[in-house]
């Protein structure tokens, strides 16, 4: 009568354990990376109905962010401009450009332009634009170098840990109020002193403006 289990099966439990461990590690590593906003969200660059180049408007023409996003200092929400705002200039400039046909249609018909949302918070997060831009947090911290973008993409993960990085150490990000919309601003041009200089600026702002490091759940979740 032959053995039911050949000799090689003695190795099987060890192989299974090792295999399971390896598989588990792989799955964990995979989830840790691939399921995070860093992977799933950063770089999200949908095709918009209008090929609006921020780089041209901000970098070349020097438009301030608040010309179009005028509610950013008053509301929790930074608005997308109405088609009529675009036409303030574009009824003179490039007035017959086919790329602007959608905008002209919208202004004429009253139907909104269907922009695709890129930066989205979950419904249980109450992020308020006005309190950030009025207290020394620049657009660039969350939206990246929009002024350099031909087409807008998501530059930052905007995950909870991303928010907390700043909320825990506000000194690393704060800047004077007149530099909020200056997305290229740096406290110093010297790359070696940059971090120290930023910390110095931020610390002074924290002291002068009584900026708090808010880490309560209630700060964002209601």
């Amino acid at each position, binding site marked *: 009568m032959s053995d039911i289990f050949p000799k090689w099966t003695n190795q099987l439990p060890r192989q299974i354990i090792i295999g399971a461990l390896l598989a588990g590690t792989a799955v964990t590593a995979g989830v840790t990376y691939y399921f995070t906003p860093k992977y799933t969200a950063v770089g999200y660059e949908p095709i918009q109905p209008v090929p609006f180049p921020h780089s041209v408007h901000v970098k070349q023409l020097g438009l301030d962010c608040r010309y179009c996003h005028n509610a950013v200092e*008053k*509301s929790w929400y930074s608005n997308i401009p*109405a088609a009529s705002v675009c036409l303030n200039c574009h009824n003179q400039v490039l007035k017959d450009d086919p790329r602007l046909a959608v905008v002209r249609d919208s202004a004429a018909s*009253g139907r909104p332009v269907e*922009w695709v949302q890129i930066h989205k918070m979950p419904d249980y997060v109450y992020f308020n634009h006005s309190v950030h831009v*009025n207290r020394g947090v620049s657009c660039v911290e969350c939206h990246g170098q929009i002024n350099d973008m031909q087409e807008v993409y998501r530059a930052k993960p905007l995950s909870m840990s991303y928010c907390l990085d700043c909320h825990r150490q506000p000194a690393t990000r704060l800047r004077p109020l007149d530099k909020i919309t200056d997305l290229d601003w740096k406290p110093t041009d010297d790359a070696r002193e940059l971090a120290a200089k930023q910390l110095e600026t931020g610390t002074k702002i924290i002291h002068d403006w009584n900026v708090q490091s808010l880490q309560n*759940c209630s700060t964002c*979740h*209601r």
Partner: protein
Amino acid sequence: MKTIPPICAEPETGPKYWRSLDHLAETPEFRQWVEREFPSGASECTDPVSRRNFVKIMSASFLLAGLGTTGCRRPVEHIYPFAKMPDNYVHGVPQFFATAMTTRRKAVPLVVKSNEGRPTKIEGNPDLTGSNGGTDHLAQASILRLYDPDRAMRCTRDGAGANKQAALDYLSGLSATLGDGSGLAFLLEQNDSPSRARLQQAIAAKFPAARWHVFEPIDLDLGRAAASLAYSSPVEPFYKLDQAQVTVCLDCDFIGSEENAYANIRDFAKGRELQSKDDSLSRLYAVESLFTLTGLNADHRLRVPPSMVMAVLARLAVNLLSSSDIDSKLNELAAPAQAHEPWITACVKDLKANAGKSLVLAGYRLPLAAHLLVIAINEALGAIGHTVEFHPTAAAPPAVNRVFYSGPKAGYHPTAASNEGTVAELAAALNAGQVKTLVILGGNPVYNAPVDLNWPQAQAKAGTVVRLGYYQDETSWSEAAHPGSQWDLPMAHYLESWGDARTADGTVVPIQPLIEPLFGGITELEVLALIGGLTPSSPYEIVRETFRALGGDSENNWRKFLHDGFLAASAASAVTVQHDPAELKRAIGELKAAPAPSKEALDVVFYRDSKMDDGRNNNNGWLQELPDPITKLTWDNAVLISAATARELGVFTDRNVQNQKFFNFQVEVTLNGRTISGPVWIQPGMADHTVGLALGYGREKTGRVGTGAGFDAYKLRSSENMYYASGASVKDTGNNSYELATTQSHWSMEGRPVVRETSLEQYRKNPKFAQTMKPEDPPVTAPLYPNPFDAAKTHGMHQWGMSIDLNRCVGCSACMIACQSENNIPIVGKEMVGKSREMHWIRLDRYYASPAGTTDEKRMEDPQAVVQPMLCQHCESAPCESVCPVNATSHDDEGLNVMTYNRCVGTRYCSNNCPYKVRRFNFFDYNRHPLDHKHLYRSPLVSAHEGEWELLRWLQNPDKGDLPEGEWQLAKLIKNPDVTVRMRGVMEKCTFCLQRIEQAKIAAKVKARDSDHIRLSEKEGTVPKTACQQACPAGAIVFGDTSDPESSVSKAKEQERTYKVLEFLLTKPRLTYLARVRNPYPEMPDYKEHSLPYTTDEFNNGAFNEGVGAEEPAEKGAP
């Protein structure tokens, strides 16, 4: 699942607070029920979907979830900006508009919040003279009516849908065919709108033969008719309760069910304010047959059947009026009150001692003679000009409620009669075929006209009926009883309408729309103008035109009127009037002395339900689910009956407990040959041989919310017995399977001094009584587990806290609805309330208390009752936090116990560990499903629904649930965007309106910019109010920053009456209560019983044996 309550020294003597009959009866079922953490069904899965089935379904769901992860990027969403930027609008910043809600003749001035063009929250307008910004629960709940998916949405002609333009064309074509108006009749609701009065006059001038009739099934305006008669000029009484030191209410629930209750509560609460022991306190006497909120708040309450109320009033009059005014008839009426002579004598003595500062009030149920008598008494007491004044008014219609019981039917019209007829006269005209065109504006006469008028048949005799109504209801066209032709027009909500109104003191207030009519609703003014062929016919132009006469032609005045929400200095001023007793004698002469009720011939009281009103709020889910302030019943009315009478009739029950549910006897009530049936509810403190029937339930044709709620008491109500009736009989039907959903017996406090009270006399001797009333000493001096957030709390910028003054709180429930509206709290339906799954974040606990040493039977006869708002106490050392396995509930720096919904996994440990039982769990997705068994319990995997497989629908739109698309769109509109809408499986509770706090802080920071002035301060008005605080008409709730010694909450907490509930648990609540002080009159026959209010009594009798005045709590039998 069992918790053993710590042994609490049960006082040997002294009162016992009890929550329900079962509590009193101490039945084994009740013990078991109390000792369970959650009632049965609230914590187990005993539902049709069995546990095994559930596991199967869940594993399948996980498989699907696995398939789904490949596409775990968020779905593409769009942003839709404006095409053209509107002026003065910033997306995301709410706007506020002043408007008003009409009640009956009067209006509540409001400020309404609008988010992105949709009204979301109603507040009182604080800018009017005397206003504190408080409202009532009906105004708070009225916003839900706007988004009611069951409201009338289209014009119909004879039941078939019709074009709105066709309807408007019909109306405007009508005026040409009316001639001089003969054959035209209007049936209106009461309203004091200047514009309506102007249109009525214009129409009357054009159609002099048109008939005008006004009908309110529950008429709260009798005082005006009486005053107009007593003073032979059109005047109406205006009560100044804040000036009254002594108030005697005769079946007058001015706190709960009279007109302008919110203003009454506000003024009454002023008299109950106590800052220190030297302050004076007003006193309230109530003579009543039901147990009402006014009785609950009274210092002395005389429980008498309705027939006796009139006798007590007559006896008061005999003692107070000058002898020339007293005739033999009055003496005859007063005779039955002989038994209460000592009570009445003392009451009279107190009234006389406070002449000029005293006030006598008669309720709407009492007949005209009683109101005339009360005017005479107030004259004799010198109250006129002090506690009551008379304002000029439009001529009052004839008084309908002239008889107490079946007596002389009609026949005499008061001299001050206007040209407005009654509904009975209209019915007669209809039956005589005199009405060709009947215009019914508002109201629902088919449902609630007196039953002897046979209104449905009468209405069918009109040639054409034009009906403006908010719902497709009983009065709308129906196949069975259709008239020649009927137009049904959808009425616009007041938040969709232009209009005007007057407040209690006569101030003119605008009604302005915040939103275009959602379903093409039409206003009353529009219909009147069209029928009258008047121009302009747009409601805006009508109101604007009226305002020219009131406030001048200037555009600025008009804009200011709309901006402020009132016309300054338009309040009526008091007029001097000359009292004429002739009418009184005449009316008294008409009255018949009522027979005393007996077991065979019971008295019936028809009363205005605190929520449904006369039935108009029947389809309002917030109000249906709001517990009645006294009975704590939801979704139903009941046959209220006293315990002794129930025993006599053989329908007494300790609640038939089956499967942990309460079942009640179903009885038949027969009156004058008409019979209705309903479940019995034993009401402690009710007069014996009296049956209380709430109106407004048992609708035959209403929306989905109101269908099936309660029974219709109008079916017993005839013209002669509008409010009281005698000779009713009650018969047990043998059926006891009707389940009532009540919140009454939930969360028993086990006899601990949760509500603390004393008498004024004792309070003056020992102002710190409340702090020494501890049931036991803490076993340790510090909490067992140090709170890890203790350190964090020290560096918060503010420290939030709240103080609730139980002396001012009257139990009106406005806070509950305000909270529901502000915090997106869903309703859960009757079945779920029956399982204790209601979601209210703030509740009003009502405890009964009875004198020490009385038998169980006696205790239920004449108890005292107290109310206490109970909400999250925001314990500094919160028991819920230490047991949360996922840190979903935690403390923030400013002392708030916060709840992070997205972390919550639904273990419910926190609720288990909460000693106050204020946490609420979402057992289902109440927001996304119709609230019935079929829909709530359905799994997406098991069944198809309306042709669409649930899973497929769920994958397409996981947000929506299985609400029909249109309903889902409507349901979303009412939500407050600043508060998360919670889903199934999430725990929730009061947050102290965290969203308002955060918004205030953000606003301060945005304003501060690069300065450091970011602290909120009450002095600067930057501290927000919580929703409950803002809605509270009594000003009982104070919220603020306790780290600011100047804040009103700090000052309130410094008061000597401050105490904490269950402080021996060392939870250190941030919410403190100010103990209640009763003010019994020493000359009263029952003063001996009342002199030591039960709680003080309790401590002097053992639990607190050092007696009154001790600084330290004494040693006692601690566990």
